[in-house]
């Protein structure tokens, strides 16, 4: 049975318009004008218990609006959301006990308190017995490797350390579902990898359902088995990561370094992406032509070095965004 059910969800915002300059500012005071922005249009999906789902899309696609409706921060205009049998618009408090949220660009920790005091605070607001909170803190201290800074005020922590603490604060009440809105934003590659490992471990050890938005394709590739792509407020793709790669990874990139210059033109199934004389980059549509055809076209005797790779997932996703616009 689905743990999250979203049906025909829509949300429209009223945005104030202002013409340029001082006169525009005055006009906006005297006679304000508004435009309606349809942030989310009639979207539906279901998520099963224990799934790790990437909910992605370009900026302004409606990701955060959807997450905020699911976490009872925003009220939908139309449609319904059912999370473990609860309606976020009516059962806000009950739902709070079942879910955890991390918004990478916002802070929920008390900056002048230490992570330890913060965790005690979050435990108390979720009505957890003090002895149980202590046990949970010990558990997370080990799991998330917090020993080094658990007694340092949050304001003195690095961004990576703070995000780790933000995640722990969201997990202290053992939520069944964790909503992560760009949790790795602004982090360096090592810390990102660290956070991903922790998210994976959390899903494995606590069977926490994870709903993740991120612009970082590595987050999606390494964590999620299912991808929902949203653009212009609509779901444009809802598929497994495996299918996404299978259906969309039908192009190969061939980078070749040549002994001598050769002149090539686009052919059916083979596109010249870059031609710098001795260095060539071709894209091969393997549904139409084979990689061997491309190599033959280059003349194998003239090749010094060659590299054959898949089109990066990032490009695939960008193409899906563009094609559905």
């Amino acid at each position: 049975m689905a743990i999250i059910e979203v049906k025909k969800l829509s949300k429209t915002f009223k945005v104030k318009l202002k013409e340029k300059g001082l006169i525009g500012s005055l006009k906006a005071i005297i006679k304000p004008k508004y435009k309606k922005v349809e942030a989310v249009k009639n979207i539906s999906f279901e998520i099963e218990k224990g799934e790790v789902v990437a909910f992605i899309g370009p900026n302004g696609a409606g990701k955060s609006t959807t997450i905020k409706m699911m976490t009872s921060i925003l009220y939908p205009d139309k449609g319904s959301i059912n999370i473990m049998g609860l309606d976020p618009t009516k059962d806000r408090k009950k739902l709070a006990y079942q879910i955890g949220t991390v918004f990478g660009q916002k802070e929920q920790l008390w900056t002048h308190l230490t992570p330890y005091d913060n965790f005690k605070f979050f435990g108390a607001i979720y009505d957890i017995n003090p002895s149980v909170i202590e046990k949970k803190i010990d558990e997370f201290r080990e799991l998330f490797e917090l020993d080094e800074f658990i007694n340092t005020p949050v304001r003195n922590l690095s961004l990576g350390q703070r995000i780790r603490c933000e995640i722990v604060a969201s997990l202290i009440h053992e939520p069944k579902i964790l909503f992560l809105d760009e949790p790795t934003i602004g982090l360096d590659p090592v810390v990102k990898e660290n956070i991903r490992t922790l998210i994976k471990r959390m899903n494995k050890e606590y069977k926490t359902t994870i709903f993740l938005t991120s612009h970082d394709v590595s987050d999606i590739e390494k964590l999620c088995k299912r991808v929902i792509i949203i653009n212009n407020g609509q779901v444009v793709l809802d598929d497994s990561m495996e299918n996404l790669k299978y259906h969309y990874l039908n192009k190969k990139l061939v980078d070749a370094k040549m002994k001598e210059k050769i002149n090539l033109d686009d052919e059916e199934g083979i596109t010249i992406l870059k031609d710098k004389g001795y260095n060539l980059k071709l894209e091969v549509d393997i549904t139409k032509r084979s990689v061997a055809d491309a190599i033959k076209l280059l003349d194998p005797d003239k090749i010094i070095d060659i590299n054959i790779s898949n089109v990066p997932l990032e490009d695939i996703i960008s193409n899906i965004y563009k094609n559905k616009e």
Partner: protein
Amino acid sequence: MKKYLFIAKSQIMSNMQYITNIFGGFIGFTLILIILFNLYQYLYSDPNELINGYSMHQMIWYVIITELLWSILGGSKMSKKIANDVKSGNITYNINKPYSYVGYCLASNIGDLFLKFIFYTIFGMVLGIFFVGHFPNLNIISALIVIVISFLALVISILFITSIGLVSFFIEDASPLYWLYSKFILVLGTIFPIEFFPVFMQKILIFSPIYVVSYGPARLFVNFNYVDAINIFCAQVIYIFACYALCSFIYGKGVKRINVNGG
């Protein structure tokens, strides 16, 4: 209830990290009192003279209490915090937690002014002794009652300012409303007791928030009697329930309109 005590406790612990800020505020507080002390010296040719039932010493203690209540409150910061949370989108983390947002605002603001309440009260009493030379006629019980009523006055002020802050859900910037409220309290409820105003205004002011947030506690401190104490206490309890209901109403309406910036 336990979680709200924890919210207040966490706020106190947080404020302890920059406790010296409180002492900085003593400078402004002292300057205002020096100015008012000189004003009352000018008004009272004889310190034993009574103007509208108040001696000069009573007037100085009166203004010390009303100024204390206003300085401890720090209402401008309180009102701006909600507006900033709405504008920046930080409100998101406060409205999906298992507590009442109004209760959270009340508890965190009580925690916020708890240390100020202690330090400012001590400082204000020392300053009063310096200016006047002696305390008003209070025994331990009446002093405790005045402390409780002063605390309730602050609770009502917090709720008033929270209700103003919550208007940010509708108009984004509620600072003009706060400005009006602060000037109302400052002009009509801080410098002079209600008895100094024309009779028709006195009748209005006695039913206004000034009675419960500034005049009441200060009046009790300079001229304590149990009948006034009971009247003020009852009025404060009514105000607390009414203001809490008002905040909950505004929040309930406003939260449905919230438009978190950046998605």
